[in-house]
């Protein structure tokens, strides 16, 4: 049992931190909040230059072929500067789904283009009920003229209007089991019949509702097997959820750093507010939860990297980190007093992002229902299992 980072991981984190701290100083991050395009678009080419867009793709497609753990560490660094990019939708979700399920031809077409920053692919999965499970998908695709006709609507789609393509999950057949009958389609974002309605959301990120009004898709653009998309989507969403926990951890850590520094400097009643025990209590509690959540994310990533069943660990990590990062950013805001409540406080982007991501890829409550299934309905991780994995 060894929870220390490897030398390579330390180097990865150091170089990422060095680059991001100089490219994204806090004052800039705050200014970017008022950008008309809804995110700092000039940062994406720089992320591409760093090679991060290929972090979890094989070298054959121009990737770095690093582990899910490494990707989590990298995302943690991006979270530390609240950097808004299409990384989640394009790299972790759509690209990863194509890697999991696509034909060789599709992979060769899409993945190098993503790695090189030449293509954005948004992820058209979630729908009106805003849950990341199979049952939420109601959009239909009916076979017609050697292709499929898609109808329905996708909600909260990140970077939809900015993307070149959209990966759509739709129902190709009805089944008692919601995990059956789903199919993935890689669709041109400008195809006739696709409409976008920009959403106004709290965090600095473009999102849209995408309406599919009889959109025709050639059957060559089906990704993976017809009716079997859940076997691609499920592991993809699991991976993205864990890596996202890294980002959320980074947000929380940076917000706490700011709060710790501020409470050492800010003097009231003739002493730094950080000398008050109540303040120390808040910070100690928030640090404790943030650190636990950080390692819960690593644990889930490690399970995935080692092909060990991870459904419980992923849901546990996402729910826990969801609570922890929101609490940490709230404490950080609170400790900045009136300054923390101003619109241009340095903590504000972190506060908003933490709340946003708590609900991205499933809220805490959603993940708790998954945890309940795992610990109550299935054989528990519990006591009778062999203890070769440290956490059980």
């Amino acid at each position, binding site marked *: *049992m*060894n*929870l*220390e*980072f*490897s030398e390579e991981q330390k180097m990865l984190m150091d170089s990422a931190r060095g680059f991001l701290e100089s490219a994204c100083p806090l004052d800039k991050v705050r200014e970017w909040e008022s950008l008309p395009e809804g995110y700092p678009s000039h940062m994406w080419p720089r992320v591409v230059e760093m090679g991060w867009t290929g972090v979890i793709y094989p070298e054959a497609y121009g990737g770095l072929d690093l582990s899910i*753990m490494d990707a989590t560490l990298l995302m943690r660094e991006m979270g530390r500067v609240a950097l808004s990019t299409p990384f989640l939708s394009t790299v972790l979700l759509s690209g990863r789904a194509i890697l999991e399920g696509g034909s060789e031809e599709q992979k060769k077409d899409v993945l190098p283009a993503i790695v090189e920053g030449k293509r954005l692919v948004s992820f058209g999965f979630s729908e009106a009920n805003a849950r990341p499970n199979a049952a939420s998908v109601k959009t239909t695709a009916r076979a017609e003229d050697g292709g499929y006709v898609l109808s329905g609507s996708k909600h909260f789609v990140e970077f939809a209007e900015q993307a070149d393509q959209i990966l759509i999950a739709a129902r190709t057949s009805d089944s008692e089991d919601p995990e059956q009958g789903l199919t993935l389609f890689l669709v041109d974002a400008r195809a006739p019949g696709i409409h976008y309605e920009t959403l106004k959301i709290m965090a600095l990120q473009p999102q849209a509702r995408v309406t599919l009004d009889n959109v025709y898709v050639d059957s060559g653009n089906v990704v993976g097997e017809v009716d079997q998309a859940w076997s691609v989507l499920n592991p993809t969403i699991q991976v993205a959820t864990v890596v996202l926990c890294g980002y959320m951890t980074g947000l929380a850590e940076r917000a706490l750093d700011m709060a*710790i520094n501020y*409470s*050492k400097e800010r003097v009231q009643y003739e*002493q*730094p507010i*950080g*000398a*008050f*025990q109540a*303040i*120390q*209590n808040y*910070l*100690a*509690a928030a*640090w*404790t*939860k943030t*650190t*636990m*959540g950080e*390692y*819960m994310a*690593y*644990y889930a990533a*490690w*399970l995935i990297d*080692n092909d060990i069943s991870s459904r419980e660990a992923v849901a*546990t990590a996402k*729910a*826990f980190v969801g*609570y922890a990062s929101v609490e940490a950013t709230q404490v950080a805001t609170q400790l900045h007093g009136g300054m923390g409540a101003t619109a241009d406080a340095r903590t504000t982007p972190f506060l908003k992002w933490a709340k946003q991501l708590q609900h991205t890829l499933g809220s805490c*409550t959603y993940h*708790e*229902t998954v*945890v*309940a299934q795992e*610990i*109550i*309905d299935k054989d*528990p991780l*519990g*006591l009778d299992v*062999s*203890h*070769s*994995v*440290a*956490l059980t």
Partner: protein
Amino acid sequence: MDFRFTPEEQAFRMEVRQFIEDEIPDVIKGVEEIHSSHIELEMEVVRKIAARGWLGAAYPKEYGGRGENNVPMTEYILLDELHLGRAAGISLTITYLVSIIGNTLLSIASEDLKQRFIPRILNADIRFAINYSEPDSGNDIASIKTSAMLDGDQYVVNGTKRFITCADTSDYMWSLVRTEKGSRRHRGLSIMLIKTDSPGITTIPYKMMNGIETCDVIMEEVRVPKENLVGQEGQGWSHLMEALSRERFTMINFKGVSGPFDRFVQWVRTAEIDGEHLAEDPVTRQRLARQHLDMVGGKMMQLIAASRAVHNDYVPTVEAAASKSWRAVQSWPKADLAVEVMRSYGLMTEEDANAPIDGLWAAEYCWAGHEMSGAGGLDLNRKIIAQQGLGLPRWSN
């Protein structure tokens, strides 16, 4: 990062588990603390553990140890399994002996004390009580009043100690006393070993609400040989800090909290009350899941502390304080939840033969009171995190 134990560590774990099954009698299982009434049984088990060589692996050969490296992990696994096997009392005895007192002796005591005590510790034929708290000195341990004034080659000890667990069943008390007349707070303190049956000592045992016993210890004109001073006279505070950080790290095993909860979830799966399946109630499910998150968090912090200790040769004071404070924070909520799910049946105690799960949750509820104070309560552990971990200013001394 590797969350797996090595095959050797895993084999050791299995060996310990088998030992617990074969050698630990049921009457002392499920006991979270050392029960005075089972002391002899417990010591028999600890001696069997000693006979297997599990106690002295890291100790130098000249004191009866095995001089091995990389033992923190073995020590961690041993204590962890004892907690999982519901033999926390044994774990605590070992912690006192080997982790707190033995290790501190090794690091600061005179050669004479090492020779006298360490071999006996490794053979488990000695018992200690930890003798710090006083009626007016709890968290604020620097305010103790018990005095020990040198008179020739003996110290003369006077004072009253409170909550001294096992004072009535131990051979020696590992004691914090004031050796400099008129000294204040951290200055002038010393640690010494006081023989429990010395003339002038009265121990008064009493029960806590969870059934365990602890004692008041009244010391009047107690004579202690000068050689029993541990480390330097007047350096008691820094010696104490060293002993305390070992205590927090090894004594506080989160499995003591998560183990009962995991077993509770297992019980819920098949439990029925008046024909209702508890596992089907959505509110129950949600709340169990929520509590599970917090249990995993606690186990994780313990692993972080263990990993940093093993791989970095470092005393994980802050991580241990985080683990301990989390244990305090979670103790009542997990018991509240279990009792809530069990409805009024959760309030039945072990004395009622019909109590589900042997009345465990009424006991857990009462046990939680102790979690808030033992080994520095919630507030003090948070202070350690904030000041030592996050670098915030001191607010008192």
